[in-house]
């Protein structure tokens, strides 16, 4: 493949941020098909429109997901990217790697693919960007046999689950997000690789309400760490913060002079439930009133820590706007224990109950959050066998349109109009 002129893309080689154009040009020295990637992208910059055809169904035997088919709509101009299929490779929890593992994967991708990747895709997979149909099976053979690794999800199935960094390098994780993510990913391999759902389904595991993996915005089942006892306080460390010896918020604001740290203004008064106060030089918290927003803990990580009776809140139904509008996950189970000690039983039982119901009543291409909206939260709770509690709503409904069930009303719905008319003339 010949070198391509890319006058428009060349203008993305200046400036302080790393340039993907410069990077791909260097790769083109050993993988000349990269010139066709740049070539077709340059054409899109000129035409201001994509040059990839709609869809294309390709894959490896036995899987219904993990590969996204892609073909150029100008293959005669750029034969090097006539086929440009994506391979999704399941990422390890928290995205730690050894260099030997990455080098081995890169050698495979140099052999079978374009040499271009995404670290990582939005859902979390390693994305290998651009290969030909005939390379898919040989790549998959080597990936499974030589590396012991596997593809992720795509299509109407369970998408590759993802987690925050968790206990491996964070002091706030209320359960082991890595272990939960890894174990559930292994348990549900069939659901990841063989589409059987109405639409895509995502799990995300965040260790605390800071929600670094955006579980509440992006996953059908959001597992978000929390605690139900008291915030742990080290009063000596509180004094150090007040004295200005410890940097507030872990030094996150050190680039600007915000003045001396003021615990009253920066912590006590910003508490959304007003459940804390200073008394005799000590910080007091009325934990019964706390909603665990994390602000005070974020500001004073050396003085405050989540409690020790930890677990997770389970929320259901987040999605981006297509089609009925964006949804956050709705709180369904306020607190469960998430632990390998019982094989994550409470969580997996709940997940499977949601799937059983959704696979039966969900319409084609309907996310579970949309199914919940369609049938209503009371129905969803009842199907899940969850007792309705005030925590399920922001506020009670303001309309009186209740779907009373016949068995809830004395005497039922059957009545005799003649008996009625005998007492009430028309």
């Amino acid at each position, binding site marked *: 493949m010949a070198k391509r002129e890319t006058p*428009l893309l060349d*203008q*993305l080689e200046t*400036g*302080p*941020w790393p340039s*993907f154009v410069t*990077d791909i040009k*260097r790769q083109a020295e050993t*993988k000349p098909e990269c010139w066709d990637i740049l070539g077709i992208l340059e054409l*899109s*910059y000129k035409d*201001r429109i*994509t040059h990839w055809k709609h869809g294309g169904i390709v894959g490896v*035997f*036995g899987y219904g997901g993990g590969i996204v088919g892609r073909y150029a709509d100008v293959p005669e101009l750029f034969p090097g990217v006539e086929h*440009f299929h994506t391979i999704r490779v*399941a990422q*390890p*929890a928290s*995205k*730690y790697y*050894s*260099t030997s593992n*990455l*080098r081995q994967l890169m050698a495979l991708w140099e052999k079978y693919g374009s*040499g271009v*990747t*995404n*670290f990582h895709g*939005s859902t979390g997979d390693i994305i290998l*960007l651009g290969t030909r149909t005939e390379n898919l099976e*040989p790549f*998959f053979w080597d990936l*499974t*046999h030589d590396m*012991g*690794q596997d593809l992720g999800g795509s299509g109407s199935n369970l998408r*590759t689950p*993802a987690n925050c960094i968790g*206990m491996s*390098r964070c*002091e706030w994780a209320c359960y082991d997000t890595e272990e939960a993510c890894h174990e559930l990913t292994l348990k549900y391999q069939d659901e990841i690789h063989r589409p059987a759902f109405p639409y895509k389904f995502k799990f995300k595991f965040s260790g605390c309400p800071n*929600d670094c993996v955006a579980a509440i915005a992006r996953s059908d089942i959001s597992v978000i760490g929390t605690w139900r006892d008291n915030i742990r306080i080290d009063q000596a460390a509180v004094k150090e913060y007040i004295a200005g010896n410890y*940097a507030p*918020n*872990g*030094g*996150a*604001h*050190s*680039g*600007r002079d915000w003045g001396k740290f003021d615990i009253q203004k920066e912590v006590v008064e910003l508490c*959304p439930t007003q459940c804390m106060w200073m008394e005799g030089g000590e910080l007091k918290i009325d934990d019964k009133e706390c909603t665990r927003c994390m*602000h005070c803990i974020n*500001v004073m990580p*050396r003085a405050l*820590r989540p409690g020790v009776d930890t677990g997770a809140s389970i929320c259901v139904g987040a999605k*981006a706007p297509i*089609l009925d509008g964006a949804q956050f996950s709705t709180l369904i189970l306020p607190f469960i224990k998430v632990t390998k000690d019982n094989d994550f039983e409470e969580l997996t039982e709940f997940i499977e109950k949601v799937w059983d119901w959704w696979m039966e009543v969900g319409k084609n291409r309907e996310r579970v959050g949309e199914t919940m909206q369609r049938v209503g939260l009371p129905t969803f709770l009842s199907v899940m066998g969850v007792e309705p509690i005030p925590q399920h709503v922001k506020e009670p409904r303001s309309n009186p349109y209740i779907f009373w069930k016949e068995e809830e009303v004395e005497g039922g719905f059957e009545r005799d109009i003649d008996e009625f008319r005998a007492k009430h003339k028309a």
Partner: protein
Amino acid sequence: MGYNPDKPMDGRISDLGPPHYEQFFPPVIKANKGKWLWHEIIQPGVLMHKSETGDEVYSVRVGTARLVTVEYIREVCDIADKHCDGFLRFTTRNNLEFMVDSRDKVQPLLDTLASYGNKYPVGGTGAGVTNIVHTQGWVHCHTPATDASGVVKAVMDELFDYFTSMTLPAQVRIALACCLNMCGAVHASDIAILGIHRKPPMIDHKRITGVCELPLAIASCPLGAVKPAKAEVDGKEIKTVKVTVERCMFCGNCYTMCPAMPLADPEGDGIAILVGGKVSNRISTPKFSKLVIPYLPNTTPRWPETVSAVKKILVAYAADAKKYERLGDWAARIGWEKFFEKCDIPFTDKSIDDYRLAYDTWRTTTQFKFTSHIK
């Protein structure tokens, strides 16, 4: 021995799942998992975590283009081999993290990173702008309304000083999705850059019969704008669809279902800006991003209109918000009418919701501010 196309099922291995994470932990991480006590950002891009064992881990955070090559990953591995015992990780926002187990190993690592010029920018921590989460755009996607990597490069070039410093009132999360499918899930970001279409789909009558299940195409439209129709192709009447243009909201869902209904267009497509979303439960509850600029053109290769719009919003926020206040909390406190005024963004009817649940966003109080909008 490798794949044998004559016997494709022989020796096949499947459903292995991801490799176990623990084998990739740097030793200091493995020894201290679950034992971390607190952390501090010792300089922009460098975090120190302290363990109850007394151990410390220093993580150096580096921005990446996300769209990276085999050669790039190998270079990253060289750096990790030299400084980090052969381990590294990536964050959920496409940053790299190099970890070392003592403070004296930090500067040599930073020196190595700096020796590559602008390839490994250190930052993305605390009250600054971290890397932009984004989608594929024109380099790979079949439904985009804009590019992704190019827009991100142009925006991050302009915001670079915010990546390498911590001068903002709080962290600002920017995300880009190249169409309404929002693979980048920008719907809960402080600043969202969203590719949008503005022309209804064309109908390729010549092609629709072979590639499209008409009932699915019709059902795909949330507003019932796609209807059954007939057309003549090569003298023969065929079943097809038509689009009621006044009902089209340009979501592109019909094209996802039916390849014979393309809607991308150089003049029609562009970028909308949404702001004020957040994911964290900190102080206030999670919030959706709200649409403040309905359309900016796809001016390749550096999208100057989008870059300047994002910068203007960021500068206004930085100047006016209180410490710890996220962009959406700031806008809610000062009132959205003030937000438009302070950011010098013209308010248009495009920012008033007329889709489902729209009424939730209409103002039903006499509390408002007298801004320049009231003539």
